[in-house]
């Protein structure tokens, strides 16, 4: 199909559309549309916030237990509190670099409802006392950049951004910044390097925790697009209403991009904590079943960096701690479904190749290790694998992430889950993420690798003894 398609966007009965209420509204991206459609009146939350003290606004975010939607699931209100007292200026960087394979939600939020994000930025800036907000949008997202630029122009003209917002003493600039293509820039310290005009290579933590030493070494809050897009609804409703959705530990909703082998792939806003993967795959509201005539082989619950799950895990809820305990992570809300036609080695190679291509090269275990992982997997897939390759692969992986790597349980073989997160010998988690598909695939589908390796041994070679 030429042209872009509209993502399907129903929510389940009783689940409010907190961030997606304007996805289907034709002019939801304009100021007028933002004010007159959706699950709350646009910019009314900002007016309410300006009546409160900044610390009261922060408290609300803390009480709501708004979890970060960028990958780590860290509570936003607590993160905001990490800025050292009396150190100025403070900055906010909005992470719109969405590039984790399988993830497609921040782009829709930016294209369909840019004012919601802008209002979210303003609320955060007021609460934290930010001197400036940088809205970092992935370079490849030209349309999102256009929509945000247009929305910012409207908002500035209406006195909603800039000097003396709505006639008060609250003033802040929001600047649209855009990247130029590099997955690693989504990592918050690399994002900051990139915003300073440098190569997007992560910084060591400690000491470079952004809340203490971020952009220009000033305290900086990095939040994901979806995280901030929750704020206008939260502030035009209440903490109680927000917490009435989902569970105590995971309140509110999440946007989930459901892709791969389901009948109805799409982006769905679901209640966190209560919705299960089975509902996501099977409900008519969401996936509407694995594609006809096929069955589930495995799925990725949270983007390419997440260890795989299998049919035994479908009844788990989309809850961070539960999924973490079961050996994976919810990550960026990217659920990729693979049916029995999927070649585990080929899928594994493709994911590993991604990490090898995107490694920034700053640390040796990741730069060299991901390259070797790709090389070894490629030769196995091509039929040139050596009998020692699986052990070699796991050994290389162990140099990037030592010790038992997080993996789902395998009841048929009496193997327990290893909980998330992995250990790392590297500066950032990208290198260790490359190990996720490898350990997941080898633990479950070792025979698929071995079959490909053995094939070559079947070719009789006269007079040569094969070294096993």
């Amino acid at each position, binding site marked *: 199909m*030429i042209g872009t398609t509209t993502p399907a966007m129903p929510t389940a009965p009783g689940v409010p559309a907190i961030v997606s209420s304007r996805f289907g509204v034709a002019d939801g991206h304009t100021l007028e549309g933002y004010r007159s459609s959706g699950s709350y009146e646009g910019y009314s939350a900002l007016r309410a916030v300006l009546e409160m003290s900044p610390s009261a606004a922060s408290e609300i975010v803390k009480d709501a237990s708004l979890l970060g939607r960028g990958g780590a699931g860290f509570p936003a209100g607590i993160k905001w509190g990490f800025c050292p007292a009396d150190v100025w200026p403070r900055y906010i960087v909005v992470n719109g670099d969405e590039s984790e*394979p399988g993830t497609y939600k921040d782009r829709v939020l930016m294209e369909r409802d840019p004012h919601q994000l802008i209002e979210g930025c303003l609320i955060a800036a007021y609460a934290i006392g930010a001197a400036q907000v940088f809205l970092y949008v992935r370079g490849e997202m030209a*349309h999102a950049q*256009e929509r945000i630029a247009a929305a910012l122009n409207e908002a500035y003209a209406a006195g909603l951004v*800039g000097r003396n917002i709505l006639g008060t003493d609250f003033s802040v600039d929001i600047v649209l910044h855009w990247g130029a293509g590099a997955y690693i820039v989504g990592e918050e310290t690399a994002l900051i390097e990139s915003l300073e005009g*440098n190569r997007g290579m992560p910084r060591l933590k400690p000491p470079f925790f952004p809340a203490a030493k971020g952009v220009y070494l000033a305290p900086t809050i990095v939040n994901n697009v979806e995280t901030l897009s929750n704020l206008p609804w939260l502030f035009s409703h209440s903490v109680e209403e927000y917490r009435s959705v989902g569970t105590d530990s995971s309140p509110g909703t999440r946007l989930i*991009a459901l892709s791969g082998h389901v009948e109805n792939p799409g982006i769905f806003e679901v209640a966190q904590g209560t919705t299960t993967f089975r509902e996501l795959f099977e409900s008519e509201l969401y996936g509407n079943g694995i594609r006809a005539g096929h069955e589930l082989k495995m799925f990725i619950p949270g983007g390419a960096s997440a260890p795989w799950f299998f049919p035994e895990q479908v009844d788990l809820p989309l809850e961070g701690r539960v999924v973490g305990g079961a050996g994976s992570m919810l990550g960026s809300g990217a659920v990729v479904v693979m049916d029995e036609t999927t070649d585990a080695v080929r899928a594994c190679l493709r994911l590993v190749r991604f990490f090898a291509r995107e490694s920034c090269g700053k640390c040796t275990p990741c730069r060299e290790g991901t390259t070797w992982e790709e090389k070894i997997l490629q030769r196995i897939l091509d039929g040139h694998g050596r009998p020692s390759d699986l052990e070699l692969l796991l050994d290389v992986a162990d140099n990037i992430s030592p010790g038992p790597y997080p993996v789902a349980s395998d009841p048929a073989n009496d193997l327990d889950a290893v909980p998330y997160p992995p250990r790392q010998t590297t500066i950032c988690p990208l290198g260790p993420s490359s190990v996720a598909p490898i350990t997941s695939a080898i633990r479950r589908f070792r025979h698929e690798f071995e079959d490909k390796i053995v094939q070559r041994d079947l070719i009789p070679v006269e007079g040569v003894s094969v070294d096993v």
Partner: protein
Amino acid sequence: MARLTPENVELAHRIIARYPRPKSATIPLCHLAQEQDGWLTDEAMVHVAELVGCTPAEVLGTASFYEMFKRHETGRYCLNVCTNISCQLLGGEELLEHAEQVLGVRPGGTTSDGMFTLEDVECIAACTEAPAVQVNYRYFHRLGPDDLDQLITDLRSGALDDVVPHHGTLGRVHQDLDGDRIANITPPEAQTEPVWIRRHRELAESNDGGAS
């Protein structure tokens, strides 16, 4: 082919003014140069260095890190086929092979008529609409081989000129931020406690004082 035009220099100064430190404008200015020339020339990088106040080597160091900056001439259209996991599952790799056949080039190659540069790219955030393709960073969703043929025909004939600008053009709507409306963009050293924060702090302090 080269340094920024006077018009673009003016725009460059406006972009630089949005940042507390000029070097933060490096990537946006490289995009501006690429928009002007279709690719990022050495002369343009020297000019960007002058504008942001660093060395040309630093600009090259930054630009060479990022996929989108092309340091040699590319086709009028960059045809990027996603082969990452969600697209792979629904035929992204086969679609790329088809594109190779039709265009007669491998990923990274440019057709001899200078129309197309083909690329095998990582996830472009359209995973539910697989297989996904971008042309000069404009999206085309759920493409089969026939759709791709049609897309190539339409691009060649100019039928999509309104939708897909030439390579290097990013957003065609720009943020418009001029001196009057800027609230407070100064170097970090010049920043102090924001007024509304101070007001609330003083209010809280005087309330505390009154209570005790």
